[in-house]
């Protein structure tokens, strides 16, 4: 049994339809993808905030900022 449901091309194409694998599981895959998308935002926002906190703690003093601005 092929994952696509197509085991031979000896068919009339107008009688076929979808030819991708695992037909019938589209809803589950979409649900999983939506969870991944929302999770991506959470992870990214946390990482971005951590990055800024790290920069400020190491280089956020006036002297460092002035030095950086001179080089801009």
């Amino acid at each position, binding site marked *: 049994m092929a994952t696509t449901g197509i085991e031979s091309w000896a068919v009339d*194409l*107008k009688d*076929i*339809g*979808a*030819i*991708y694998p695992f*037909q019938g599981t*589209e*809803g589950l*895959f*979409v649900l999983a*993808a*939506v969870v991944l*998308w929302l999770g*991506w*935002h959470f992870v*990214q*926002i946390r990482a*971005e905030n951590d*990055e*800024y906190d*790290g*920069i*400020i703690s190491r*280089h*956020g003093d006036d002297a*460092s*900022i002035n030095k*950086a*601005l001179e080089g*801009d």
Partner: protein
Amino acid sequence: MEGNLNALTTVFTEFYYWATIPLMFFIHIGFCMYEVGASRRRNHLHTLMKNTMLIPLVTITFFFFGWWLYWAMPNGPFITGGLDTASAEANTAWSETMGPNTGDRITGVFWAAFLLFSWTAASIVSGSVIERIKSGAFWILAVVIGSVAWIIDAAWGWHSGGWMVQLLGYHDAYASGVIHAIAGGFALGVLVVLGPRLGKFARDGSPRDITPHNPWLVCLGLFMIYAGFWGFYVACNVPIIDPGGIGGQITGDTWTATTIYLTPTTLGAITVNFLMSLSGGLLVGYLASKGNPFWTYSGGLAGIITASAGNDLYHPIHAMIIGGIGTYCAYKLHYWVEQKFKIDDAVGAVAVHGYAGFIGLVICGFVLWGHPSSPYEGFAAINPLGQFAGAIIMFFVLGFVPGWIVAKILAAMNLLRIPRQVELLGLDFASNREEQAAAADVRATEKAAV
């Protein structure tokens, strides 16, 4: 596909739309180039990534729900009817027609052509907020404009059955409003909450010019957007259809190209009008800005955008003059709004897209007054009041208001703007230091090898 003519028409239409997609890719390349060119050296990489990463985020969300919105919402809902779930059914993320399917060869190509418009809408906003917005905040805003707001406006005013077309006689053939006015309005809503870059305004309120670090890259980026705009224009047309396929009031059997409203036009018309409106914008942009390259190139873009609403029908001279008028108004409005309201629009996106798009819709209402907005019976004709109402809906209702609200929520959660110290140090501070350290290490090794 039954019959050779049907098969040929389907394959030609499929390829026609497919060819617009790689062309429209150039719009995004252009936006990235001009945004990076306009940013200061200390913010380059974050600026590039901010615009680049909207691509996957808008793409997947447009697949999840954006495409469904277009087919479900032409009636409002509850203005001329309910949610059109029957039409939307084949366009859900879990529909069999969204994957490889021998019974539906074209839905995926349509989807992608619309998606590239979505990227453009989000990318327009991206340039205006550079150097102080958090990337994570921008990407949420990009999904809102790219996969929700603009596609609702497309369902309302850029669909052969949209309620704005039916009731207002709204006409916007090449998206002065449905892409440009909405994106400009959205950007303005975000900018009001986000605030200007540090140092943009002096203590007395007068604006300082934060010049692009690389004007050449900025202008080349705008030039690239012109190239991609060709794909945008042809993607707005139905390339060939017979009156029977339209099923409206057109009689006879003369096949034609049409707008998205299925009203007849020609490929020749839009080709000439594209170039004439570009020329009108360039000529006026050059004079108004006294030869400033950035505003001259932006003027070309503003010219096309202003004339786009009616470029399916304008005479080429109309297109040129309308392009020039829109460019002049957008240029003047940019500096007036900047001075009056302290809005720091880093690349002039609100002006070039938002004001020019709004003005283009209004002008179209007068110039095309009385022309049928649809081949179907019972639709309002194009008129100035309907176009003005449409411009308000695009710029304010679906643009400014959602942008302002979402930006307010993000600001309340402290997610909108980067910390002050990081803005001063530069968004690329950490990676620049790593690069400098690596370069110093290599230099030391090379010296030791002498």
